[in-house]
C-alpha cells in the first residue's frame, strides 16, 4: 500500500465540513490574508497568499459538496485535483506556511484559513506530496518515538545529570502522580535546563508529578505532516501512559505544536474525550502562582519582551498566563508592536523546521521578526517554545543580531524564592 492521488482526494473529501464550506463560500478574494502572512510580506510572492494555499481543498469542496459544482462536474467544467496540482502546491502548503493562523485573525469574513491549510495537508500527505524532511521526522517519531530520534536512554541520561545538578529526584513512572510531564526532543537534546527548572519549581511548589518512560515525547509530527492516523497513534501512546500511571493532568512542555496536538487535536484524533486534563506548563505555573504556591524573588532589570509561540497563544489560548508570570520577575517588560494573538510567527513552526528544503525561506521571512524586534530593541527575548527558541537564535545569528533567548520556565526557576 502506498500514497496515491485517489487516497489524497478521499482524504480531502473527509475534511470538508460545514465550517470549511462556510469559509470557502465567504471568501471574496480581498487579499488581506496576504498582508497578514510573513511568507507573503517578506517574499512579495502572491502565490503565497494564504487562501491560495487551500486551493486543492477548495476544488474538492466546490466539485463534491455544492449543487452548482456537482452540475459543473457533470458538464466537465470544474477544475480537477490532480497530481500536478498537488505537486505544485507542495511548497506552498508545507514550506510556506507554519500554520501560525495570523491570516485567520485578519480575514474580514472570519475564515479560519490556517485550519483549511491544516486540512489540505491531510490530502497532500495521503497523495504522497509531503516533503521528505517531514516524512523522515514522522517516520522517526513512529518507529523510534521521537522525530529527532531521541530514545529513553538519552532522556534517562539527562535525568541523571539533572538529579546530580539539583540534588533532587526526578520522578519516573510514578503511578498515581497528579501531573505527568511531557517533553519535546529539543528540550531533551538542546535545553535539558528545562527539566532542571521544572524539577526545582515542582519541588518548590510541592506537587506530585512524574515522567513516563513509555511516553515522554510531546511532539507530534503527525499533525504537522497532516496525517491524522499517525497523529492519533502518537497521541494514543500518551493517553495509554497517562491512563496507566493514573495521572490527573498531562503537562505539555515549552513546545507549540505539541500543545496543539495533545490539548486541542488529541481527543478528536483518538475519537474520545480524555480521562485526564491537559495543560501547558505555563498554565500550570500560573495556577501555582494564583494559589500562592509559586513564589519568586528579585526582578530582572534588563529590557525583556515575550515572543508568543503561535500554537500556544493565537491557536492555543495561552496568552495571559505567560504575562502574569513575566510580571513576577521582569521589571522592564516591553511588548512587541504586534503581540499576543496578533504576534508574528518566528517562521519555523508547522513542520517548516523539519523540512530542510524550507531552510532558506525560513530565514528569509525571519526579517519580519527582526523588524518587530528592531522596533523595541530588547535586551533579551523570552519564549515558551523550544522550536521558536532554536529558530529565533538561528535567525538572530543570520541577521547578525545579538539578543539572548530565554525560557520562561527556566527564568522562573532561577528566581524561585528560597524556602
Amino acid at each position, binding site marked *: 500500500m502506498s500514497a496515491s492521488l485517489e487516497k489524497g482526494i478521499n482524504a480531502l473529501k473527509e475534511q470538508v465540513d460545514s465550517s470549511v464550506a462556510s469559509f470557502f463560500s465567504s471568501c471574496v478574494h480581498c487579499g488581506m490574508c496576504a498582508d*497578514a502572512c510573513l511568507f507573503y510580506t517578506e517574499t512579495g510572492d502572491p502565490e503565497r497568499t494564504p487562501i491560495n494555499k487551500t486551493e486543492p481543498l477548495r476544488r474538492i469542496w466546490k466539485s463534491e459538496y455544492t449543487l452548482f459544482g456537482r452540475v459543473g462536474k457533470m458538464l466537465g467544467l470544474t477544475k480537477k485535483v490532480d497530481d500536478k496540482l498537488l505537486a505544485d502546491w507542495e511548497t506552498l502548503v508545507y514550506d510556506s506556511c507554519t500554520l501560525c493562523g495570523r491570516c485567520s485573525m485578519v480575514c474580514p469574513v472570519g475564515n479560519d484559513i490556517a485550519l483549511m491549510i491544516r486540512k489540505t495537508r491531510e490530502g497532500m500527505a495521503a497523495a504522497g506530496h509531503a516533503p521528505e524532511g517531514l516524512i523522515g521526522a514522522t517516520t522517526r517519531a513512529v518507529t523510534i518515538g521521537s522525530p529527532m530520534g531521541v530514545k529513553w536512554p538519552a532522556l534517562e541520561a539527562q535525568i541523571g545529570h539533572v538529579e546530580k545538578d539539583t540534588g533532587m529526584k526526578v520522578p519516573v513512572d510514578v503511578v498515581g502522580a497528579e501531573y505527568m510531564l511531557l517533553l519535546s526532543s529539543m528540550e531533551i537534546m538542546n535545553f535539558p535546563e528545562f527539566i532542571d527548572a521544572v524539577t526545582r519549581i515542582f519541588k518548590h511548589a510541592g506537587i506530585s508529578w512524574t515522567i513516563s518512560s513509555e511516553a515522554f515525547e510531546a511532539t507530534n509530527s503527525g499533525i504537522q505532516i497532516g496525517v491524522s492516523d499517525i497523529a492519533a497513534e502518537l497521541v494514543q501512546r500518551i493517553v495509554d501512559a497517562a491512563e496507566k500511571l493514573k495521572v490527573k493532568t498531562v503537562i505539555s512542555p515549552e513546545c507549540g505544536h505539541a500543545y496543539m496536538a495533545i490539548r486541542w487535536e488529541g481527543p478528536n484524533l483518538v475519537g474520545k474525550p480524555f480521562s485526564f486534563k491537559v495543560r501547558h506548563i505555563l498554565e500550570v505555573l500560573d495556577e501555582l502562582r494564583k494559589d500562592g504556591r509559586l513564589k519568586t524573588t528579585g526582578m530582572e532589570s534588563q529590557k525583556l519582551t515575550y515572543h508568543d509561540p503561535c500554537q500556544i497563544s493565537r491557536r492555543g489560548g495561552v496568552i495571559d498566563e505567560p504575562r502574569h508570570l513575566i510580571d513576577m520577575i521582569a521589571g522592564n517588560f516591553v511588548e512587541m508592536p504586534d503581540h499576543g494573538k496578533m504576534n508574528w510567527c518566528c517562521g519555523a513552526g508547522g513542520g517548516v523546521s523539519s523540512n530542510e528544503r524550507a531552510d532558506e525561506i525560513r530565514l528569509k521571512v525571519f526579517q519580519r521578526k527582526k523588524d518587530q524586534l528592531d522596533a523595541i530593541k530588547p535586551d533579551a527575548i523570552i519564549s515558551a517554545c523550544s522550536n521558536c527558541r532554536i529558530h529565533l537564535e538561528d535567525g538572530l545569528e543570520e541577521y547578525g543580531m545579538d539578543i539572548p533567548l530565554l525560557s520562561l520556565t527556566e527564568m522562573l526557576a532561577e528566581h524561585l524564592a528560597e524556602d
Partner: protein
Amino acid sequence: MSEIEFLSWIRGPGFQIATIVLVAGVVIRIVEILLLGRKTNLAEAKGSEMSSGLRTVVTRMIPDAGTFRRSTFTIVAGYIFHIGLFVTIFFYAPHILLLKNIIGFGWPSLPTQVVDALAMVSIIALLAVLVHRFSNKVLRFLTNFEDLLVWFVTIAPLVTGYVAFHRIGLPPSTLLGIHILSVELLMVVFPFTKLMHTFTLFMARWYGGAISGYRGVAS
C-alpha cells in the same frame, strides 16, 4: 417591444424569475452548507463556542490597528462601497417601497440627495477597487472571472440606478427597466458566486470565532 412592455416584463415575470432564483439559490446553498455538519469537539473547552462565535461576528467588522495599516486601501474602499450599497439598497424611498411590498413592512427613507451622493461615492469606490484589483499583485493573482463578474453585477445596479435617477440619455421607463434588469442580473448571479458571502460571512465568522473561542482566544 415597447418601453412599457419591456418595463412590464422586467417588473413582472423578470423580477419573478430573479426572485425565485435568488431565494431558492440562497436557501439551497445555506442548507447545503449547514447540513454538512461538523464533528463535536472532544477536547475540554477553555471558552464558549456560541458566545465567542457571536462576538466574532460583530468584532470582525473592525480590523486591528496593524491590519488596518497593512491593508488600508482594501479596508477603506471596502467599507465605503459596502456602506454605500447598504444605504442605496435599503434607504432609498422607492427601494423601501419595493421591500415593503414584498416583506410587508417599511421604514423611513433618507433624502434622495444623500442616497444619490452615496451611490456616486460607491461607484467611485468600486472603480477604485477594480483598479486596485489589477494594480495590486496579490489581487491580480487571486482575481478570476468570477471576481470580475461579481464586480460587474455589483456596480451595474449602482450605475444604472444613478443614470435612471438622473435620467441620462434614454427614456426614463427604459432606464428604470435597465436598472431593474441589472438588479435581476445581480439576483440571478448571487447564489452562484462569492456574493453569497452576504449571508455566509455570518456563518464563517461564527465558525472562526467559535473555533478560536473554544480554545479561549478572542478572535
